[in-house]
């Protein structure tokens, strides 16, 4: 399968081509190049998936992990070295398919959405760069290669959020995204270094062959030194901090809502479907280590995920900017995935390992329907030229295709069968109930909130009170085919994805797992979702939203706080500006300016003054040189005479 290297190289070459010569091309040509290359990458990914899963299981009943390409890049000592390579296993194949599909859809969609924008070629170059980095991240053979691509992903995200570089908000948002994720990546890097130092390798699974075969982690534990076992939970926890930064877990989520300043297709690709799930992917990648050495850290992942999901769902209920609602919904859904992974207690899918499969399944289905939601939102924004809900309302008769596809995505995210979200969310809920009923009921409540805020969004956009003056001045119109085709494609995927026998392909220890619905959980969650949708219908479908206004008025404090995202940005600003800047940075800056700088200034001044004094000796007059020469000769003579 050496051709898999092409999956990485093609987007990179397309980035170089478009980045260097793009400005001399016609925009349409540049876009076509990017899209065709991506189409090739998508086909190759599908081919890889087909061949890999077609290749069958090995005698242990799992799909073997393949490394079709591996190169030792930086050797440190005998066994510690950084490799660059390609690792194919069920989750990396899953991610390849997700990334290339969504990326291709976004490439096609951008033809319509970005038409006539300044820097169209640059936009496609950055999209190629992002796709390259993200694909490199998922096929990384070791944690350090993953880190390299992790940072590349961060850079391309920064570049794309700041695409409208003349807009101050976009610049601020791109900086915020970059700095917050970099701050989290510091934890990731320290985690990697600790991990590499103590286990003596950067590979994902030191001595894991033994775990997979033997009955539990004890067999492998003897392979690692005792010091490594002590610090591994710390290292894994720090790595999760990095993952939490990228995946916008509370309290590092603050960059994601602002990142919506970027072009909407970018939000769909990076900030909904692919990059933000990198943290989930990281946890899934390190899953055997978490289970084997640090189950308590894994459960913390679940608690953080659950809290984030709850927080984001509450905030999403009151936002008025449609992209922000979707952003918080993304944060909430990533929380779901984290919970799925975090509630696992063993590697066996039938006994406590169900959450792994559920989390990855939700990652897959969520990528599709969330990309669909964002692209639908993009079509709406394209039609009314605003993100605010107040400019919308009653759009269903103007934009039928967007309306239907958006409705499908809303039903999917709310967990209504037979759409894909139902199946994956249900597995997560089942896993959560198995772990602890408390987490299970919390997640069910969040699922109810999800259904509520998604249908609030849906009704406010497509039903409700129409903004007549805006719509008569500028009639909204359905988007062109280049934009509606991705919507229809993703909607079709959303309809059928739930019936994929996902457990066949991905499960915690690689053995086949047949998904069976837990009737009790399924019925409960569907009932809850339907009730929430009915409540949303009553509150927001009609022209007047008296009940919603009354509720907002009654719980005024809660409503305002949630609208301001519980003041998390302000708290961060307070922490950074008032505490970190004032108590740490200011004294350091003082020391730097007054001690270190002054020391060097003194050296410079001393040299300058000395030079000033002795420069008169070099006055260019031969006669004075001669006098110096003579006096030297006289002194030497006298010395010789005296000695």
């Amino acid at each position, binding site marked *: 399968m050496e051709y898999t290297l092409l999956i990485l190289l093609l987007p990179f070459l397309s980035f170089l081509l478009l980045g260097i010569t793009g400005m001399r091309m016609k925009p349409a040509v540049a876009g076509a190049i990017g899209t065709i290359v991506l189409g090739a990458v998508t086909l190759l990914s599908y081919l890889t998936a087909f061949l890999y899963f077609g290749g069958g299981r090995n005698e242990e009943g799992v799909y073997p992990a393949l490394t079709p390409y591996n190169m030792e890049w930086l050797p440190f000592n005998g066994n510690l070295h950084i490799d660059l390579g390609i690792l194919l296993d069920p989750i990396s194949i899953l991610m390849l398919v997700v990334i290339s599909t969504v990326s291709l859809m976004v490439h096609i969609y951008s033809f319509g959405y970005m038409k006539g924008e300044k820097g169209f070629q640059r936009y496609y170059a950055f999209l190629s760069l992002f796709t390259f980095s993200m694909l490199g991240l998922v096929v990384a053979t070791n944690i350090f290669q993953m880190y390299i691509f992790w940072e590349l992903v961060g850079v391309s995200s920064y570049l794309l959020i700041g695409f409208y570089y003349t807009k101050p908000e976009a610049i601020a948002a791109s900086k915020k995204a970059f700095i917050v994720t970099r701050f989290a990546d510091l934890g990731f890097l320290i985690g990697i270094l600790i991990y590499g130092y103590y286990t003596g390798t950067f590979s994902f699974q030191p001595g894991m062959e033994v775990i997979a075969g033997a009955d539990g982690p004890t067999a492998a534990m003897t392979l690692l030194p005792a010091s490594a076992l002590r610090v591994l939970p710390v290292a894994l926890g720090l790595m999760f901090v990095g993952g939490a930064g990228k995946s916008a877990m509370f309290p590092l989520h603050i960059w994601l809502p602002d990142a919506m300043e970027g072009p909407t297709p970018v939000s769909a690709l990076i900030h909904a479907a692919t990059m933000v799930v990198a943290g989930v992917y990281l946890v899934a990648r390190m899953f055997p280590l978490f289970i084997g050495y640090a189950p308590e850290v894994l459960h913390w992942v679940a608690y953080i995920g659950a809290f984030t999901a709850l927080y984001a769902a509450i905030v999403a209920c009151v936002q008025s900017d449609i992209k922000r609602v979707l952003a918080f919904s993304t944060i909430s859904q990533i929380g779901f995935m984290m919970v799925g992974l975090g509630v696992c207690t063993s590697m066996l899918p039938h006994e406590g390992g169900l959450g792994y499969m559920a989390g990855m399944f939700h990652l897959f289905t969520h990528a599709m329907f969330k990309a669909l939601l964002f692209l639908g939102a993009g079509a709406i924004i394209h039609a009314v030229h605003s993100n605010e809900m107040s400019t919308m309302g009653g759009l269903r008769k103007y934009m039928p295709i967007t309306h239907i596809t958006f409705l499908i995505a809303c039903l999917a995210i709310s967990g209504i069968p037979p759409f894909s979200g139902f199946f994956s969310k249900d597995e997560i809920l089942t896993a959560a109930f198995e772990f602890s009923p408390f987490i299970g009921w919390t997640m069910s409540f969040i699922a109810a909130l999800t259904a509520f805020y998604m249908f609030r969004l849906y009704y406010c956009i497509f039903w409700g009170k129409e903004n007549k003056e805006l719509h008569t001045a500028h009639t909204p119109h359905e988007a062109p085919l280049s934009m509606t085709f991705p919507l229809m494609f993703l909607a079709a995927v959303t309809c059928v994805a739930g019936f994929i026998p996902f457990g066949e392909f991905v499960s915690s220890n690689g053995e086949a797992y047949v998904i069976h619905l837990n009737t009790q959980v399924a019925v409960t969650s569907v009932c809850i979702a339907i009730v929430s949708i009915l409540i949303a219908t009553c509150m927001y479908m009609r022209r007047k939203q008296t009940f919603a206004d009354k509720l907002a008025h009654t719980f005024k404090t809660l409503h305002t706080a949630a609208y301001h995202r519980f003041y998390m940005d302000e708290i961060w600003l307070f922490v950074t500006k008032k505490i970190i800047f004032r108590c740490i940075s200011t004294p350091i800056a003082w020391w730097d300016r007054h001690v270190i700088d002054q020391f060097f200034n003194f050296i410079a001044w001393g040299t300058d003054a000395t030079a000033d004094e002795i420069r008169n000796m070099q006055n*260019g*007059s031969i*006669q004075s040189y*001669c*006098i110096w020469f*003579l006096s030297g000769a006289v002194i030497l003579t006298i010395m010789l005479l005296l000695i």
Partner: protein
Amino acid sequence: MVPMEYYLVVSTIMMFVGMYGFFTRRNLLAMLISVELILNSVDINFVVFNRYLFPEQLEGFFFAMFAIGVSAAETAVAIAIIINIYRNIRNIQVKNLNEMKN
């Protein structure tokens, strides 16, 4: 016969007069004259030492002749330079020769 020391005293005085003139004079011609004085004092030394210490040999005389020839050529070049300087800046004071400084 005049003792050798008399010649040497004259040549020493000429040497130091020349040096003094070279160090103190700010006029190019005066400096040239001082250099000539130093050279001539050395010539006297050559001749005197040859005459008194090695009367049967002639190297000192020849060296003196050679030095006189060289100094004549050197003077011609120096005067040519000084004339050119005079043409350019209408005087030959050393302190005015700072065109190429800084």
